[in-house]
């Protein structure tokens, strides 16, 4: 999942980036509203983690601006937004939710709770209600970051899991290599030109050739119906 963290506290931003990065998320950080807006305009993000008290203004201003953006272009006004702030008053929470936030956590928060809320937001954005993703004999648990094939666990690296999850959530749509890269890497990552091909190759070796298909010259996809 590509996540943008708009947070001015260096410790929190770094901690979030480290914690989420280990789960295979691509995390970009912005310390100001201006930097956050620039990042949203540059790349699509699966989730925005937004602090409210920022040096150049209130995060709710960025939220309102995002929600008011035209659809079909960047920034994507449908981007899920999770507000994380030290404002604990009910009125502040209600205000943030009313102005377009999808969820709200109060500092200090448990990182596991934050991750669970992020998964829930991602699930809702993908139109799913079930926490597990199933595709034929394949069962993927985004929370536990585990994959079962015919009931047997399949060990996957963090990036491999991220590619599989992105394709499963997007099925049967085709994701280009650039889209997969955008979901897997942040602005600072050093990309190798064939990284996505390598991850797909590893996934096919572990899961079989029938799960991930290639549309030559376009990208990769998981078919709506699993191969018999």
């Amino acid at each position, binding site marked *: 999942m590509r996540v943008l963290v708009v947070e001015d506290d260096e410790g929190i931003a770094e901690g979030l980036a480290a914690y989420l990065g280990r789960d295979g998320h691509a995390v970009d950080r912005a310390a100001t509203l201006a930097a956050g807006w620039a990042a949203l305009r540059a790349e699509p993000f699966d989730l925005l983690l937004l602090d409210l008290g920022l040096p150049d203004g209130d995060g709710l201003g960025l939220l309102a601006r995002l929600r008011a953006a035209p659809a079909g272009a960047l920034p994507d006004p449908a981007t899920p937004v999770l507000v994380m702030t030290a404002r604990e008053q009910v009125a502040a929470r209600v205000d943030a939710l009313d102005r377009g936030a999808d969820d709200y956590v109060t500092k200090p928060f*448990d990182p596991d709770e934050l991750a669970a809320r992020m998964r829930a937001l991602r699930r809702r954005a993908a139109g799913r209600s079930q926490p597990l993703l199933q595709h034929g004999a394949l069962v993927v648990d985004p929370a536990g970051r585990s994959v079962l094939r015919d009931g047997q666990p399949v060990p996957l690296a963090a990036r491999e899991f991220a590619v599989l999850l992105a394709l499963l959530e997007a099925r049967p749509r085709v994701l280009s290599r650039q889209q997969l890269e955008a979901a897997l890497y942040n602005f600072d990552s050093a990309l190798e030109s064939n990284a996505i091909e390598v991850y797909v190759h590893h996934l096919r070796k572990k899961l079989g050739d029938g799960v991930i298909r290639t549309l030559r010259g376009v990208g990769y996809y998981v078919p709506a119906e699993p191969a018999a």
Partner: protein
Amino acid sequence: MSAPAATAAQPHSLLRHLLAWTLGALVLTWASFLVAGYRAGLHEADELTDGHLASVAALVLAGGSRGWQAPPDDEAPPPPPSHEYQRTISLVLWDAQGRLLAHSGPAPLPAFSREEGFATLALGSPPRPWRSFARWSDDGADAAARQRVLVLIDDADRVSLAWDIAGQVAAPGLWLLPALALVLGLAVRRGLRPLRALGDDVRALDVQQAGGLRDAHPAQEFTAVVDAINQLVARYHAALQNERELASELAHELRTPLSSLVLRSRALREAEGPPDRAALARLERDALHAGEVLGQLLALARASHAALAEAAQPVDLEALARRVLADAAPAALAAGHELALDSAGPCRVDGHPLLLELALRNLVENAVAHTPPGTLVELRLDAARRTLLVCDGPLPPGAGSPAAAAPGRPAVPVGALGLGLGHRVVAKVAAVHGARFDQPPPPPGFSRCDRLQFAPAPAGGAPPGSEAERISIVTERRAPSRPI
């Protein structure tokens, strides 16, 4: 236990109080009328009876007293009065030699004398007072033919007449008094209705709301009270709101380093390989910041006028300022700031040393945290004006915004609260010490100034004009000039 006893005691009723005073005054007035009526009645009775006696005497003498015969039988009872207002008059007649010619009426026979005029005689056994009038007949040169007439009336009749007159004067009051008391009670009760309304309004007052009293209470006599209550409620509400905002902001200030601590700890726990020393250092800094905020929170929570009264002690602000600046110097100098202290000598105030240090530290650290490198932060202690100023100078050439951090250092150093919150902390400490915290126009060469103005020293303390009597503290910020 005086408090429960006081609580159990019946509250004093203003209505009863007013009624008691009003009716008391009324009864007093009525009693004075009664006394005046009795005295007037006595006087009138004197005039009436004396006139009556004189008239009877004149009538007897003019009507030919020679027609009077020997004295009647003294034992015979007086004839009954023919009219209810008729007075029983006694009459005694003597000739010039003192022989009794006639005697009528219930009065005992007095001894003969040659006196004329009015007199009060004590007659009978036991003696009773009788009012009398004596007169000699005027028979020309024949002195031997002259007669002396004595007319008497029982003095009790005279007193009875006086009481009768007084009764007539006071009688209306007897039936008017209860009616008047009732009417007065109702009038006073009705007149006190605005006061009761004010009492009900005060009783229903919710100090959590800033509105004050619900009703206007337009009575002129209530204006001062209503204004005072509304001002008191407004001030209380403002103080309450201030406390809430302060607590909320301190909690906010505490939550951020705690969040950072949690996330960094988790990252370190799950990290593979040797521990990241930089991450550990950041962890330590966050923990120190959280501890600093918590310490300030606790100090402020304990801060109150009552606590200050118990813990107040003489504090030398100059020594305190020197210590605070020395503590702040390493971080400030490392960040390219300059610090300076301008003080003429020791300045003592009665206060809480920990809280005063907290306030001073906040002012200095905020001045350092919110100004670019190269700025001079100066602390001025003015004993004459009991003022402490923290000022910073204009931005040095090429500097960014005051809030911008120098590269490689956090915008706010460890321990420094946000500017607004830091000022709230200082304002709270100032309020506890009865001091004033504000931002006056900065002195020449400075761009911003925070001032703590302490109240004048109490009378009987240091002599006027002395260093101990006049204390002021100034912290200033400006462009580099004089390092400490």
